[in-house]
Structures are given as C-alpha cells and as structure tokens.
C-alpha cells in the first residue's frame, strides 16, 4: 500500500483495525516520506521518530486487544507552539532553541491519551507572528504546490506537511488567520474553533484574547475526528469554555436544504483577485445546488479590523513575551555586565525582526499617555466588528467568502513591506476579534495555486461548519487533489 498518505482517517482506521498494516508500519511510511521530502519543504523543525515508533507499538497493542479508539495509531504532527514533554518546543524562535518542554500542552496530552503517534513538530512563523512561515529561526517552509511559493502562516509547517502527505493530520493555532490562511494556500482543510473551545494550556501565548488552537487535515471529516479529541473544558486554562463539547461527526451528513448563506459585500470588493473570486463563486454555486439559499449581507466595519488587530495583538504580545528574560529558561546572552544588559541583549539576540516590531508596537500602544488612543480605542472598534457579525448571523446561518484576497505569494515578496503582508489577513482577522469559529476548505485553483473558501459561523457552531464543509466535499473532489511533486 503505497498511497497510505492519501487516505482519510476513516480509511486508515479500517486498514489498521483489519490488520492490513500495523500502526508501526503506518508511522514508518510517514517517517520515510518526511525523510524523502522534507529537505525540500522544511515543514518540520523536529522529527520524533523514536518516540513515534514507541507510541505506534503501544497503539498496536491496543488494536490487538480490541481497544482502539477513533485515532489509535494515527500519526499526527504538532505545531511547534504546543509544549511537548521531553521534546524541543521552539515556537520557531532562537529564544527557545534550547527549550525542552517540561510538560505537555493539554492538546498534546489529549492526543497522546487518544493513542495518536506524534511524528514531530512543525515549522511556523516565529512566535506565530507572520502570514508566510518565513520568519522562522529555522528557515522558511515551502508550499508543496509550488516550492517558489510560501505555504502561508503562521501554521505553515502543519499545512505544508499535510498537503505533501507527510502527516495525515496536524495541530495548528489561529490568532489572526494562522490556521485558515495556510490551509487555503496549501489546499487543505483547517478549522479555527470558537475562542475558548480548545484549551490554550501549554500553547505558547501570542495574543491571549485571540489565540485559539484547532485541527488541520485533508478533509472536514478528518478535522471533526481530530476536534473531537482536542475540544473540551480544561480547568488549567482560565479562558476555557465550560460549554459541553460535542461529537463533531454526528451532524456531518445533515442535508443543506434551506441553509442561509450570507455573502458580505466587503469580502468581494476591490483587492480580491479575479481568479480567487471565480473559484469562490463556483463553490457558492455548488452549495446552491445542494439546497443553500444565498443573499448579500454587509459587515461595514470590516476594514477597521486590521488596524484594531495591530494594536490588540501586539499589546498582548508585548505583555506575554516579557516572560522571555534570559533568567529562567530560553536564550541568555554571553557575559552580561549587569541585569539590564542581561535582559536587553538576551531579548535582542533571541527575537527576530517581526517579533521585535510587534513587541515595540505593543509597548508603545500600552505606554503612558497612549493607552486610551490606541488600546482602548482598538477595543471599542473590536466591539463594532463583533456587533456586525452578531447582527448578520441573526439573519443568516453562516457567512462565506474567500479566506485570502489572493493565492500564495512567492517566497520573499512579503518581507519587503510588513504592512502589505498584514493586509493579506483582511478576511480572517475580523473573525478572531469576534471570537467566532470559521473553517477554510479548498475550492479550486487560481494561477495554479490553491484557493480556500471561508465559512464563518455563530459561536460554538463548529458542527454546522463541519457539516457544510463535509457535504461540499462529498459533492466535489478539490480536497482530494495532491501536489504532483509529492504523489
């Protein structure tokens, strides 16, 4: 069976349970693919072959004993933002290049308990700050569809690894689009759950009022299976939602007849690439055929989202990243002459350019005399944006539009002008500010690069989003496409 990397989780479950192959053979298949292809893609920071094979052996014992769960023996890759006990957890930064996590993130713990097999840790923008995965201390990840292109970011390593068949599923995190945008650029499926749905314990913080972990996979059904394990209340995360989680596969097959879709006119205006618009239009037509009703809606404050985000996220980041001081863990400069020198040089050496920019913007916005003009103002704008969504989502079931205004740019392009890169997140950032769930699904190609459709739902409507995505994927095969160089 040489096409194991193209199978869905349901197919892999059948193959493992019927003993056609063992979990160890399955893990070896993916490890061989990582060895063969990742020198081209650079989607992994660490590969945990030995620990993975040991976990696969334990999974085989469970399967033999008839105790297999939905994910027993399924290989997984974790974004290097999730703490993994005994394994380097770098967050893509020189600051944490020497950091071996002393505990597991709740998400990792849950997936370990579900008998998944960790293949390694995926590459990412440094501290999840970026939209291209180029700001990693470990070098840029490449897009499997075109190695001249970026995979998106910040969860670019996870997206590229799935698209290239180096892992069937992966974890990601999304603060302003970091699951959905790389999913769109790499032609895979990625879900940002409602804020508070997935525990942030052990997930290195960037902007705490926006950060949310979520599943990335080859299909909506696989995302649902992964979310089933990731989601749920966690007492160790003070912002974890106490709302009961669900079986996210239960409603996958619901009929879409009568589904009300809102298309915000602000998501289809100037700046949207014509090829992307055509792919989105075709996807909406397909959903009409499946019984959905479509109407135009308006989210009038959308264009204020990026300005507000670039106050709120950096402000929270400047506070969160103050813990990296060269004293208790992480990088320390050589021969500091006093304590201030220790702090200032350790941080200057440990952080890259984009992280420094955001820390400085955040420090400025929170500094004496500027708080009201920046941080408080941004929080008021945030309310306007959230209110827009609430109003529209009382009229329609879901909001749809493109994930990004254009397809994946070439490597290097976004490094020239940070502000231009920020604007590429215009359709994803508002969703984080409102704390809502949204999914990115592949719906075709433009300029030979993948295009993603975004479906935004009401708070805790993950099941509905997965249902819509699954029905679409039952009727189409965009999610089954694989990059020719990684067959």
């Amino acid at each position, binding site marked *: 069976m040489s096409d194991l990397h193209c199978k869905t989780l349901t197919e892999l479950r059948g193959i493992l349970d019927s003993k056609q192959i063992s979990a160890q053979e399955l893990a070896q298949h993916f490890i061989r693919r990582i060895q063969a292809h990742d020198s081209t893609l650079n989607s992994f920071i660490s590969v945990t072959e030995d620990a993975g094979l040991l976990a696969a052996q334990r999974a085989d014992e469970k399967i033999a004993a008839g105790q297999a769960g939905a994910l027993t023996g399924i290989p997984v890759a974790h974004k290097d933002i999730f703490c993994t006990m005994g394994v380097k957890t770098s967050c893509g930064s020189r600051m944490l290049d020497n*950091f071996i996590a*002393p505990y597991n993130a709740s998400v990792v713990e849950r997936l370990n308990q579900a008998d998944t097999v960790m293949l390694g840790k995926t590459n990412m923008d440094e501290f999840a700050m970026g939209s291209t995965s180029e700001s990693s201390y470990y070098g840029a990840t490449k897009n499997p569809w075109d190695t001249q292109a970026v995979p998106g970011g910040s969860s670019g390593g996870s997206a590229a690894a799935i698209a290239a068949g180096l892992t069937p599923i992966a974890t990601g995190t999304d603060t302003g689009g970091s699951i959905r945008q790389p999913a769109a650029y790499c032609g895979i499926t990625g879900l940002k759950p*409602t*804020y*508070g749905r997935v525990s942030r314990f052990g997930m290195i913080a960037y902007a705490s*009022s926006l950060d949310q972990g979520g599943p990335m996979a080859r299909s909506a059904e696989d995302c649902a299976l992964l979310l089933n394990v990731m989601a749920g209340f966690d007492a160790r995360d*003070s912002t974890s*939602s106490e709302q009961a989680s669900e079986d996210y596969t239960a409603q996958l097959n619901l009929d879409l007849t009568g589904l009300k879709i809102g298309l915000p006119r602000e998501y289809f205006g100037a700046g949207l690439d014509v090829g992307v618009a055509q792919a989105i239009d075709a996807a909406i037509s397909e959903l009409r055929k499946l019984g959905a009703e479509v109407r135009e809606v308006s989210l009038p*404050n959308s*264009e204020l989202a990026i*300005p*507000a985000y*670039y*106050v709120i996220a950096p402000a929270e980041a*400047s506070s969160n990243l103050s813990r990296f001081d*060269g*004293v*208790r*863990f*992480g990088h*320390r400069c050589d021969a*500091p002459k*006093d*304590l*201030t020198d*220790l*702090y*200032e040089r350790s*941080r*200057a050496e440990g*952080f890259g350019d984009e992280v*420094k*920019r955001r*820390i*400085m*913007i955040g*420090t*400025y*916005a929170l*500094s004496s005399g500027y708080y009201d003009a*920046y941080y408080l*103002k*941004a*929080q*008021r*704008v*945030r*309310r*306007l944006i*959230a209110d827009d969504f609430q109003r529209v989502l009382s009229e329609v079931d879901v909001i749809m539009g493109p994930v990004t205004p254009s397809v994946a740019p070439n490597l290097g392009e976004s490094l020239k*002008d*940070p*502000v231009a890169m*920020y*604007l590429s997140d215009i359709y994803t950032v508002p969703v*984080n500010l*409102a*704390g*809502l769930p949204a999914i990115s699904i592949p719906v075709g190609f433009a300029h030979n690069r993948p295009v993603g459709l975004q479906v935004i739902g009401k*708070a805790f409507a993950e099941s509905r989003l997965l249902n819509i995505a699954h029905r679409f994927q039952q009727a189409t095969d965009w999610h089954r496409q694989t990059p020719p160089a990684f067959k």
Partner: protein
Amino acid sequence: MLITPNEVMKIAHLARMSVDHDDVERYAKDLSGILGLVEQMNQVDVRGIEPMAHPLDMCQRLRADVVTEVNQRDTLQAHAPAVERGLFLVPKVIE
C-alpha cells in the same frame, strides 16, 4: 514619520530589548508604517462604545484557594541558563 529614531530607542528600552544603532532608522520607518495603518481607526467615532476586552464577554473563573501544584523545582530549573542551590543566578544587582 510618526515614530522618530529617538522614540525607537525609548520604546526599545521600555521593552528591555536593545536595538543596534544601524537598525534604528529602519525600525523607525517600519513602526511608523504600522502606526499609519493603525490610525485608520480614527475614521470612526467610537465614543460611548463599550470596550471589548474578551471575545465572549466571559468572566474570569475563580478556583478554590488551595495548593494544586506539586513542587517541580528541579524539573523546571533543569533548563535554566544558570542556577545554584535551587536559585536562578543573575548578574549582581546590589554592590
């Protein structure tokens, strides 16, 4: 420019992050660009709008005031840059 090179030095110090002299101009330009973007917020009048600190308007959950953590000093200090007898070492602060 919204941020001058002098302000960059001041912000960098507040953030306890040294900036190379050669990079100050570039950061002044980059930060000014970002603040230019941010100032688009001024297009809208937000007087009277309640600031939104948290997406779901949740309250901070409190827990019982009891010890739940075990002592992991050795584990947690294992990757510290410099420790001695269970203490983190830093350069001398008081002469």
